[in-house]
């Protein structure tokens, strides 16, 4: 049975503070440390109660303004393009799987059947995940144009005039040992990709990587959230699309921190893993 936060007075104090007034950087660190000591099942109870009370007292009486709705719909389309279709490409794993399939093909009959069975099973699993969508799509003639991979999209973006590229530099954090890679960012399209090789795998239930973009016009104190991502244990290159939450006027530096699952709004930078300063000019 999971322990309850109610048995730890300081934890309750911090959780109520988070739910009602927000936490400062040191309180955030302390809360993360306390939450990391046990697998609590009720750590969000105060935020949920506060939300229920807000719903009880806040009438839903104002319709969403039309211009804001339009902006949100555009935002949804951009989000779908960058996230829903292909959240993270583990190119190393894909290459390894392809190589394995190719080398397995001329092997013994039993092994070949097993390989085909594995491929068929993975196709069925993929189909099951998307079946609800397929069932609701209007039936139109299908034109089989393969979607560009993240690697191809990154290459295309890098070829665009005006796009910028910056190399990752590791900090002393253990997760950054032997990391190489870069950032490609197109200021006009407000889109880009980060690429890593050698970044330590994370357990998404315990922590996630979070990307930050330092904008010269906003100051160093409040970098813009560029999205959370995971690194699988299979190794190889990992490419992740950048999802800047706010418009970036003048990118000065990109950085990666390790945060709690889901990411944070303001990082205490307790685990700053990588930085990629953008060269002037």
């Amino acid at each position, binding site marked *: 049975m999971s322990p309850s936060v*109610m048995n730890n007075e300081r934890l*309750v*104090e911090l959780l*109520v503070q988070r*739910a*009602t*007034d*927000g936490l*400062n950087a040191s309180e955030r660190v302390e809360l993360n440390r306390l939450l990391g000591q046990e697998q609590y099942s009720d750590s*969000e*109870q*105060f*935020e*949920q*109660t*506060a*939300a*229920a*009370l*807000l*719903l*009880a*007292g*806040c*009438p*839903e*009486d*104002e*319709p*969403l*303004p039309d211009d*804001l*709705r339009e*902006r*949100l*719909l555009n*935002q*949804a*389309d951009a*989000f779908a393009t960058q*996230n*829903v*279709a292909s959240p993270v490409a583990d190119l190393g794993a894909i290459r390894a799987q392809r190589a394995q399939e190719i080398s397995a093909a001329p092997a013994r009959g039993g092994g070949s059947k097993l390989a085909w069975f594995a491929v068929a099973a993975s196709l069925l699993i993929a189909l099951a*995940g*998307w079946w*609800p*969508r397929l*069932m*609701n799509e209007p039936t139109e003639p299908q034109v089989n144009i393969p979607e560009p991979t993240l690697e191809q999209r990154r290459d295309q973006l890098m070829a665009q005039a005006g796009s910028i590229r910056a190399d990752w530099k590791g900090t002393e954090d253990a997760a950054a040992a032997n990391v190489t890679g870069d950032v490609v960012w197109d200021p006009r399209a407000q889109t880009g990709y980060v690429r890593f090789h050698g970044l330590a795998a994370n357990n998404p239930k315990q922590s996630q990587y979070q990307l930050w973009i330092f904008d010269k016009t906003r100051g160093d104190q*409040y970098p813009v959230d560029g*999205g*959370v991502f995971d690194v699988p244990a299979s190794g190889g290159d990992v490419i992740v699309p950048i*999802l800047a*939450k*706010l418009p970036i006027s003048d990118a000065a530096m990109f950085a990666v921190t390790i945060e709690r*699952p*889901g*990411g944070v*709004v*303001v990082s205490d930078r307790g685990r700053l893993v990588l930085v990629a300063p953008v060269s002037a000019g």
Partner: protein
Amino acid sequence: MTDFVLTRIAQGDSRALRECIDQFGSLVWSIARRLTRTRADAEDAVQEIFTDLWRSASRFDASQGSEKVFIATIARRRLIDRLRRSAAQGSTESIDDVETLTWTESGNKAETCAEAQTAARAVMQLRPEQRQVLELGLLQGLSHSEIADALKMPLGTVKTMMRRGLIQVRQLMGVTSVDSDEVAS
């Protein structure tokens, strides 16, 4: 197929992103208007909240609560952070007029979700001064320090009342029949 739009977003249904806006846009906008200083600030906040929602969709668990409460939780987290950041920057923006709200036994609207109605009933069982602290913090968006100033109370007392109030509401929401004297003590 699941009826939960957040579950469908987590499953990769891109159309659910738009449905989420149409289904919960008014809710998020109403909350943002309540907990931001200006209309422009609310518009920025709503855009940030929806990105948070789409990213967090996989964490929604229908067995733990309704979509509305999950969405209000995410929205509040973002808005509290913005309020804190705005206070740290010493914002002097004028505050748009917003009406003062309070709780009623039935919640403020017929369509209010069951958890909100239960919460409304629970909070009405608290002592009036304790309810007032929760009201100023949760409905008016005042910080603990602002509540202490407004009610001429020590900050520690505000924090204690807030903590006890939330714990009691939680208990009342989970218990069908609670002696109100016990709660008030």
